[in-house]
C-alpha cells in the first residue's frame, strides 16, 4: 500500500466533507417546508411529527429487542487449538495507536508480551505521534524489542486515530491484523481464537469483532453503567446482527482483519471520528462480512463524567458522520445491501442517534404533562397517539432496562442488577453527549475528543 495514500481522503463517499452540496440543499428545503407547514397549521404539523417520532421509537425499541432475542440462543464458539498446525499460525500484526498514553505504556507492553501466540509470527506496531514526546519516551523506556516496533506517525491534519492506523497498515506485514487501544487487555488466547476461526469461516468474512468489557467496572457508578451498556451491546446486539447477516458497526478496538482484504478497501477513513463504525458499513458495501468473536478484550472505562460525555459526543458525532457519508450514495447503498439490510443501516446508524437526540424533548414533555397537566400538551396526544406513546414510555423503557439486566445475567455481573434499574439516569448522560456531538459535527467535525485513561488501574480477567 502506498504510504502517501494513508493521508489522503478515501474515494467518495468519505467523511472529508460533512454535507455534500445535494445534502445541504435537501436539509435546507426540508427545513423550509417544515417551517412553512408550522406556519400554515402548527397543530397538525406538530401532531404529525409527534406521531412519526412515536412510531419510530416503537420500531427502534422492537428492533433492539429483536436483536437481543435473536442472540439468546447463540451457541458458544468452540475454540479448537488444533485447527491450525503448531507451525502454521498466520503472521499477526497488532496495531496499537498511542497518543498521550505515557502512563498506560508499561502495563500495555507487559500484557502484550503475555499474549499466547508464537513470537516469531507476531508483529506489534506501537503507533506514536511525532509530537507526543512523553509517550515516545515511555515506549523507549519500556524497551522496544521484537516483536515490538515503534512507528512514528507524522504530524498532519486530521489528527485522528484512523490516520495513525493507516500509517500502521502500510507497515504491517502480517496475514491478519488487529487493533488494540493502549488500555486494552485482550484475553491472552484471543489471537489464536481469531486465527483458528478465520480458518473455518468463508473468505468473505474478513473481520472478527471481539466483545469489549471493562476491568474497572466497579470503580464507580459511571463505570458500572458503562459495563452494563457494553454487556448488552457486545454480548446481545452484535450477535443478533451477525445472526441476521446485517452490517455490524465495529467497536474501535479488537477488530481482527484479513490484512489483504483490508488493504483492498484502503483501511480507515482518516476524517471519520468513528472510523470503526464506518469501516463496518464499508466492508458490507464491498460484499465483505464481519463475524463475532467469542473472546473479550478488557478495557478501562472512563470513570469521570465530563471525559465520559466527551467520549460519547465523539461516538455520536462519528455515527452521524457515517450516516451522512453513506446517505450520499443511497441508491448505490440500496443496490449493494438490499432492502432489509438497508433498514438495518438506517436503524443502527440513523435511528440510534435520533433517539438519543429526541429523548430530552420527550422527557421534558412527559415531566411537564405530569406536573402541569397542560391541555396544550394533551392536544398532541389524542387516544390513538397516547396509547402507543404510553406503550413506548412504559413498556419500551422497561424493556431496555430488562435487556440491560439480561446482559448482566449473561456476564454474571449479578451485583450490577440493581443498578440496571437506574439506567434512565445514564440515558440522560447519553443524550447530553449526543447533543454535544451533534453540535460539534457542525462546529468541529474532525476534532478528536481524546479520552484520557488512567492506565494504572489494576485489572484482572474476569471469569
Amino acid at each position, binding site marked *: 500500500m502506498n504510504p502517501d495514500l494513508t493521508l489522503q481522503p478515501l474515494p467518495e463517499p468519505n467523511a472529508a466533507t460533512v454535507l455534500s452540496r445535494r445534502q445541504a440543499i435537501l436539509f435546507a428545503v426540508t427545513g423550509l417546508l417544515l417551517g412553512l407547514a408550522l406556519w400554515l397549521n402548527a397543530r397538525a404539523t406538530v401532531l404529525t411529527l409527534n406521531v412519526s417520532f412515536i412510531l419510530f421509537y416503537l420500531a427502534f425499541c422492537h428492533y433492539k429487542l429483536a436483536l437481543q432475542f435473536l442472540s439468546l440462543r447463540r451457541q458458544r464458539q468452540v475454540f479448537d487449538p488444533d485447527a491450525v498446525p503448531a507451525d502454521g499460525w498466520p503472521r499477526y500484526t497488532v496495531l496499537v495507536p498511542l497518543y498521550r498514553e505515557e502512563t498506560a505504556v508499561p502495563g500495555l507492553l507487559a500484557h502484550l508480551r503475555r499474549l499466547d501466540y508464537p513470537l516469531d509470527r507476531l508483529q506489534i506496531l506501537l503507533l506514536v505521534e511525532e509530537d507526543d514526546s512523553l509517550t515516545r519516551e515511555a515506549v523507549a523506556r519500556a524497551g522496544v524489542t521484537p516483536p515490538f516496533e515503534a512507528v512514528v506517525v507524522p504530524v498532519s491534519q486530521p489528527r485522528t486515530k484512523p490516520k495513525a492506523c493507516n500509517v500502521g497498515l502500510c507497515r504491517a506485514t502480517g496475514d491478519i491484523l488487529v487493533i488494540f487501544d493502549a488500555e486494552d487487555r485482550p484475553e491472552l488466547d484471543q489471537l489464536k481464537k481469531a486465527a483458528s476461526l478465520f480458518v473455518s469461516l468463508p473468505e468473505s468474512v474478513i473481520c472478527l469483532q471481539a466483545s469489549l468489557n471493562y476491568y474497572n467496572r466497579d470503580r464507580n457508578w459511571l463505570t458500572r453503567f458503562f459495563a452494563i451498556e457494553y454487556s448488552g451491546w457486545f454480548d446481545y446486539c452484535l450477535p443478533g446482527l451477525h445472526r441476521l447477516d446485517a452490517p455490524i458497526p465495529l467497536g474501535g478496538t479488537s477488530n481482527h482483519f484479513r490484512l489483504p482484504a483490508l488493504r483492498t478497501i484502503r483501511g480507515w477513513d482518516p476524517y471519520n471520528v468513528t472510523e470503526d463504525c464506518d469501516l463496518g458499513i464499508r466492508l458490507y458495501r464491498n460484499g465483505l462480512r464481519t463475524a463475532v468473536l467469542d473472546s473479550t478484550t478488557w478495557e478501562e472505562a472512563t470513570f469521570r463524567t465530563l471525559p465520559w460525555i466527551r467520549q460519547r459526543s465523539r461516538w455520536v458525532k462519528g455515527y452521524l458522520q457515517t450516516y451522512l457519508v453513506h446517505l450520499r450514495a443511497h441508491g448505490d447503498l440500496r443496490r449493494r445491501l438490499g432492502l432489509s439490510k438497508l433498514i438495518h443501516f438506517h436503524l443502527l446508524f440513523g435511528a440510534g442517534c435520533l433517539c438519543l437526540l429526541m429523548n430530552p424533548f420527550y422527557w421534558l414533555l412527559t415531566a411537564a404533562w405530569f406536573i402541569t397537566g397542560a391541555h396544550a400538551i394533551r392536544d398532541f396526544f389524542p387516544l390513538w397517539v397516547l396509547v402507543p406513546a404510553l406503550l413506548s414510555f412504559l413498556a419500551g423503557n422497561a424493556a431496555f432496562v430488562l435487556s440491560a439486566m439480561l446482559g*448482566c445475567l449473561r456476564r454474571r455481573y449479578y451485583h450490577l442488577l440493581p443498578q440496571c434499574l437506574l439506567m434512565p439516569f445514564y440515558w440522560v448522560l447519553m443524550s447530553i453527549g449526543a447533543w454535544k456531538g451533534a453540535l460539534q459535527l457542525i462546529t468541529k467535525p474532525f476534532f478528536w475528543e481524546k479520552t484520557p485513561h488512567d492506565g494504572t488501574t489494576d485489572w484482572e480477567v474476569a471469569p
Partner: protein
Amino acid sequence: MTDGQAWRGTLLAYIRETGVCFVLVTLALVLTHERAAESSDLWLIRSGLLRDLAAELPIGRQAAVSSLAFMPLPVVAALPFLPFVHSAGTVYAYLYGLAALLALAAQPLRLLLAGWGAGRLQRAAPLLLALAAAALGPTEHGDLLACLAMLIVAVFLERRDLAEIRALSGVFWGLVLFAHAAGIALVALRIIGDVAVCGWRRLRAEEKAVRWIQVVSIAYVLTIYLFLNWMIMGSAFYPVRGVSDLWRSGHGTSGREPLADAWARTCPGLTPVASGHWSYVIRPLLAATDGYAFIDFHPAKLPVWETRSLVLVVPAPTHPLARFSDLRPADTLGSARYLRLAQTPDWIFYLIDPRP
C-alpha cells in the same frame, strides 16, 4: 440447513400455530358469546367500556383501570381491534383481544405438553385453548382466559434451561397479575411458594439473579397498574379502595324490580346519576333521562351549569350489581351532601346537593 433458514422455519411454524389457534378461539368465543350477552351484565359493561374508550371519553379510561373486577390486560388486548369493529359491536374487539392472547399461548402450551410427556395432546393445544375459551368465555369469568394465557407463557419460559429466558418469565407473571384479580393471588403464591420450597439461601447465585429479575418485572407491572390509577383516577390505590364493595355480592337475580320501573315510580321527572362500572348496565335509562355516568363520582364533577335535581342511584347492598358500584355508603353517602330520597329492596336513591 443454515442457521437463518432454521430460524425462519421456527418462526413460520410459530406464526402458523398462533394463527390456527387465533381462528379456533375466535370461533369458540364468538359462537358462545350470544348466549353470554343475554346472561350477564358484565358483557354490557365490557362493551360499554370499550365504546367509551374508542370515543376517547374519560369515563372509558377510568373504567379500564379502576376496578379489580376489570383488570387492564383484556382491555389493552382489545384496543388494536377497536378500529375494525362497529361501535355497536365493541364487544367483538374484546373477544378478538382474548383470542389473540390465547393464541400467543398456543405454541408454549404445545411445547409444555410435549415436555410433560403428553405427546398426543400437544397437537391439540389450539383445540384445548378453544375449549377453554368456549367454557369460560361466556361466563362472567371470561377475563380468566387472559390470565390463563399469560400463565401458560410464564410457566413455559420458567421451564427453559437458559437463565435469560427464565428471567423473562417475570414479565408474564406480571401480566398474569394484570389480567385478572385472581392473578394477584397466583403471583403471591408463586413467590411465597418459591421462597418456601427452594429456600432463598440454598439457591445458586445465578438462580438468585433470575428470581430477582422476575420479582422486579412483576413489581414493575404492578407499579404500572398503580401509576395508571394515579394518573387516571387520582389515587394509585383506587381499585383497592373499592374492594369491600367488590366482595359485597347479592343473592339471586329473579323477581328483581327493574331500575326503570323503580325510577318511574319513585323519582319521576328527576335526573339520575350513577357511579361505578354498573352504570354501563343502565345506559339506556341514563340516555332517556339525560342523566350522568361516572366511574368515580363526586358532586364537584357535575357541570356548574347543571340546575336540575339530581338523584344518585345506588344498587342496594344485596343486589348483584352492587359489587360493580364503587361507592361506599360509610365514606361518601353519609355526608350532608346526600339526602336519602327513596329506597326499594333493590335500589337506593339519594338527592344530591351539588354545592362543591
